[in-house]
Each structure stands twice: as structure tokens, then as C-alpha cells.
């Protein structure tokens, strides 16, 4: 069970959070200018790397803020967490 350091509330157990997928994912628009493949890319295609990945999680049972988590998909190690307003941490998978 992960222990995630919420930038607002401090370290909390994983069940207090909900996972929100990889970031960044840019929502394309306006809809009439978006091709089917670009929309499918946005909906379904993710890097899913082996190694370091940036994700967004929400502290649902706490401050209800979304945050950035830099997590290793192999070891589950968490290297950093950040607020959405902070610059997105760099990763090299």
C-alpha cells in the first residue's frame, strides 16, 4: 500500500487517494477541429512506461486536491509529489 505525501496534508495512506492517470494529457479542441485519431489518442493512448511516470492523484478523503505524483511503475517508489500549480517535475524513464 502506497504512502503518498500530499502537498497539503502530508503523508497519507493510498486508500485516501484516487488515481487519475498519466499526465500531461492535453484535451484537444474545439471538437469540430479534432480528428478521430487525435481524439482516440486523447482518450485511450498512454505511454505506460516501465519506470518513472508522472500521474495525477486526488486526495479524495483529505483536502480533495489533485496533485502530481512521480511514481516508479516497477518499484512503486514515489520520488516526488507536487501541486498542480507547481511546474511539472521532469522524469527520465
Amino acid at each position, binding site marked *: 500500500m502506497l504512502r503518498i505525501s500530499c502537498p497539503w*496534508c502530508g503523508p497519507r495512506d493510498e*486508500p*485516501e487517494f484516487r488515481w487519475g492517470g498519466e499526465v500531461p494529457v492535453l484535451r484537444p479542441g474545439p471538437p469540430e477541429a479534432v480528428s478521430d485519431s487525435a481524439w482516440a489518442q486523447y482518450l485511450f493512448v498512454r505511454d505506460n512506461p516501465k519506470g518513472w511516470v508522472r500521474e495525477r492523484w486526488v486526495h479524495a478523503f*483529505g*483536502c*480533495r486536491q489533485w496533485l502530481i505524483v512521480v511514481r516508479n511503475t516497477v518499484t512503486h517508489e514515489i520520488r516526488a509529489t507536487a501541486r498542480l500549480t507547481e511546474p511539472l517535475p521532469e522524469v527520465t524513464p
Partner: protein
Amino acid sequence: MLEHRTPFDSIREGEDPGSATIARELIVTPVRDKGLLLLQSACLQALQTALEREIGLRLPPAQQASWHGPYVLLWQTPAQWLLQLPARECDSIGAALSDRLASALAAITDFSDALVALEVGGAGLADVFMSGCSLDLRADAFPPGRVARTSLADVPAILWNPGGSDRIHCLIERGFETHLFAWLKGTATR
């Protein structure tokens, strides 16, 4: 005028948490006659000024509570605080704050009926709460003035330490009180 009722009024014989002592080591006291206002503002300076003028309280930082007289401010989220105040002042202070914040992006919501507040005290407090909450709630890890939004017995809960080493105030959404009472009673019978 309609009669105003709290969940404590409708708790039936035999499942009454207000019989004060749930078990030898744990005392549960419903917090009555308190009003709650949820303060949301994107403009913290405006909210700060309004609060200082109305009740003389500063906004506490993350994970903290501040209090002054009958007023308690609990940090909730980066732009949200919960103000606990005497029930009879709820409407007037709510309206006064709304007026002061009229030009800011702010919202004052009466939460008096939305949450149920309990004071839980006694020597077994941390042991009992830590059987349903993953936070470290022992006195040295959860000192006076600390606020945590977390989950207690699978229910979203706001916990805060009003001072001293053996009391925690707990606010949960109205409707979950029966579940929490049943859980507390069962946990505390050791």
C-alpha cells in the same frame, strides 16, 4: 415554525451515544448548539479581512485550527475553511461575511445541518481511533490545533485536536452518525 432536530434526537433507546460513556475508557459527547459555516474563497485576502472584522480570527494555515472565544476556524482545503460558531449567530455572521465578500469570488454556505460533531475523549482515544483511521493520532503526533481530513471507520471525517492530550473533535457528514456510533461502541468494548 418547524421544530429543528439533530441526528442525536432521533437516535433510539439502546443505540444512544449520548449516554456519555460508551465504554470505560471512552466518552462521546455530541456537540450541540453549534453552527457551521463553510467559507470558500479564491481571494484569501478578502476572506481574511472579512473574518478579522467580523470575529477577529486569522485564517489558520494548512492542517491547523485557530480559535478565539466561541469561534473556531478549521482548515479544510487550500481555499476552504470551516467556521464553528454559536448556532444563533450563524445567520447573522453568515450574512455579514457574504456582504463583505460580495465583490470577491467567495461562497458562504450554512453547513450546520450538513455535519455532525462529536467530542470523543478518554485514555483509550488513540487506540480506538487508530483501529479505524490510518493516521497517527497519538498526542505527540496529533497535537492541539492540528486538523486532519481523513477517513474514520470508512467514513469521511474531519478530526481536530481542541487542546489537551485526550480529546479529539470529529465531524462527519450527517447520515453516517449511526454507522460511526455502532463502530465506536463495538471498538471501545475492550
